[in-house]
């Protein structure tokens, strides 16, 4: 945030933010009785780093032209972004209780109708193209703002992602940071069974991107990777995140086929207790 950007924000504080985001994710999923809780939990560490450390933006001025932009390509991860936006004060925490409900602006697969959403993702393969366009536009205007795009591992099967990857490298968009969440679950199962995507890091490198691969649930590693990326000029940056679906709640981490987790009513209390008991 513009006033609060804390370059020296301790890792412990970011971990506390990530835990808050996970609390919000569980809150939404419990009220809705369902939802993309596994994804919301697995991406909380990245969103904590971006929204409470790295990104320059103002929750009270969402159309600020010089803001850094978070571009969510994977619409079903909206539960995670709602958590971050509510935590940042873009909308009230109480609104999280409307997640997925009729008439709510917090849709199960989010859209730009929600404040703080830069695009409508969810038709997978759109995000990186629009991120490239935004990065070009910001550069053409001479603005220092940056684009932080989030893709999923399954989304690498969409050809349009690679059209955009080619363009990002062709135009040397070093204001473009692309995170690829590799949680090894897509709708029909693990990507290596559905349509192999590895070697992911080597693919991005071959497309002309600076590419790193880290533990995406390690806040220290995320911070270091972003710093490494920022130091590299003349190329866009890919940071491949190996994450665990349902991270922070062992009940969900261990559940099989957890692309869309179904949770029994009695399990939410266990999930909450497990989250609080964790680090």
């Amino acid at each position, binding site marked *: 945030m513009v006033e609060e950007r804390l370059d020296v924000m301790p890792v412990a504080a970011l971990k506390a933010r990530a835990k808050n985001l996970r609390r919000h994710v569980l809150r939404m999923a419990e009220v809705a009785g369902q939802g993309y809780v596994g994804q919301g939990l697995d991406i909380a560490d990245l969103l904590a780093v971006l929204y409470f450390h790295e990104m320059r933006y103002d929750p009270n001025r969402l159309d600020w032209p010089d803001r850094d932009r978070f571009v969510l390509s994977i619409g079903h991860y909206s539960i995670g972004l709602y958590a971050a936006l509510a935590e940042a004060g873009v909308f009230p925490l109480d609104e999280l209780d409307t997640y997925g409900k009729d008439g709510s602006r917090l849709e199960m697969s989010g859209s*730009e109708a929600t404040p703080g959403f830069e*695009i409508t993702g969810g038709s997978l393969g759109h995000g990186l*193209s629009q991120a*490239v366009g935004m990065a*070009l536009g910001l550069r*053409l205007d001479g603005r220092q703002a940056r684009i932080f795009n989030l893709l999923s591992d399954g989304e690498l099967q969409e050809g349009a992602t690679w059209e955009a990857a080619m363009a990002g490298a062709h135009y040397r968009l070093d204001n473009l940071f692309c995170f690829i969440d590799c949680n090894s679950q897509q709708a029909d199962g693990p990507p290596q069974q559905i349509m192999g995507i590895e070697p992911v890091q080597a693919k991005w490198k071959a497309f002309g991107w600076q590419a790193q691969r880290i533990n995406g649930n390690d806040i220290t590693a995320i911070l270091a990777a972003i710093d490494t990326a920022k130091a590299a000029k003349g190329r866009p940056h890919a940071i491949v995140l190996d994450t665990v679906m349902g991270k922070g709640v062992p009940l969900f981490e261990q559940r099989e086929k957890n692309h869309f987790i179904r949770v029994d009513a009695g399990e939410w209390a266990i999930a909450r207790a497990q989250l609080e008991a964790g680090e």
Partner: protein
Amino acid sequence: MTTCRQTSPPKGVTGTLLSSDTTRASAVTAAPFGHALVAAAERNPRIVGLTADLGKYTDIHVFAERFPERFFQIGMAEQNLIGVAAGLARTGFIPFATTYCVFAARRAYDFIAIGAALGKANVKIIAGLPGLTTGYGGTHQGIEDLALMRSIPNLVVLDPCDATEIAQAVAAIADYDGPVYMRLLRGQVPVVLDPARYQFELGRAKRLREGADVALISTGLMTGRALEAAALLEMQGIQASVLHVSTLKPFDREAVLSLVGRVPKVVTAENHVITGGLASAVADAVTDASVPIRLKRIGIPDCFCESGSLPYLAERYHMQAEDIAAAAWELLE
């Protein structure tokens, strides 16, 4: 109704790649879209241009030469073309993205619907080779794009008829804040409308000719042929109105209803399949308003078309002025 298969021998050669059909044009203008875009961009620094490896073939090379720093070559990647354009729009630019109708409509449809239209991103999609304006066959002839584009919410859909209207429409859509799909006539483009007298208005159909016997309602390049048909009919003592509908969406129902309420014998003419385009829009309007009319539809039948020279294709698929006049006669008999 026209048929897909007939046995008449081929005539002429495959149409030249870079030009519109100027067979009967008394005047032409070169690359009206490219020059109009340059003129608009001289006034408005937010206008940028993009293409998917068809700069020379969609006349946007004129803009690229004048404003190289505001031009983005995207390569052969139409989905990315629209996505990048949407991203540029979201940073406050006014992107004009060019490709062919077939590639925009068939390959990039999801990107137009979700990337551009859903959030009303200020993207202008300029699509060449509408209908039978290329000698290539089904791969390149954009025969169903209007039907597809008309069904996307928020999207403005245009099919200008000539160089005069293209120039005016480019200025108008640059000023309009929202997504637009415009069909493009490229290269040497006929001048049908007098630039001193014609005034394009987004969303408005224009009465080009008055006549009480039959109403010809046309869009795109078929308007030139409708005017020719009206002249042919006049020589036979028949007075035809010609209503030119360059904005297919939003559709100017009032203009159509006020005409067909008085002149209920109607021929539609479009450079597009006869379902889902102009004829369907007219049928929707009269059905909703309970206005009884008799309707003949001139356009491409339900088939992929042959390759061939443009005059051959117009004759082959009954898209000539004479076909429009003959349809009018059928209504009058």
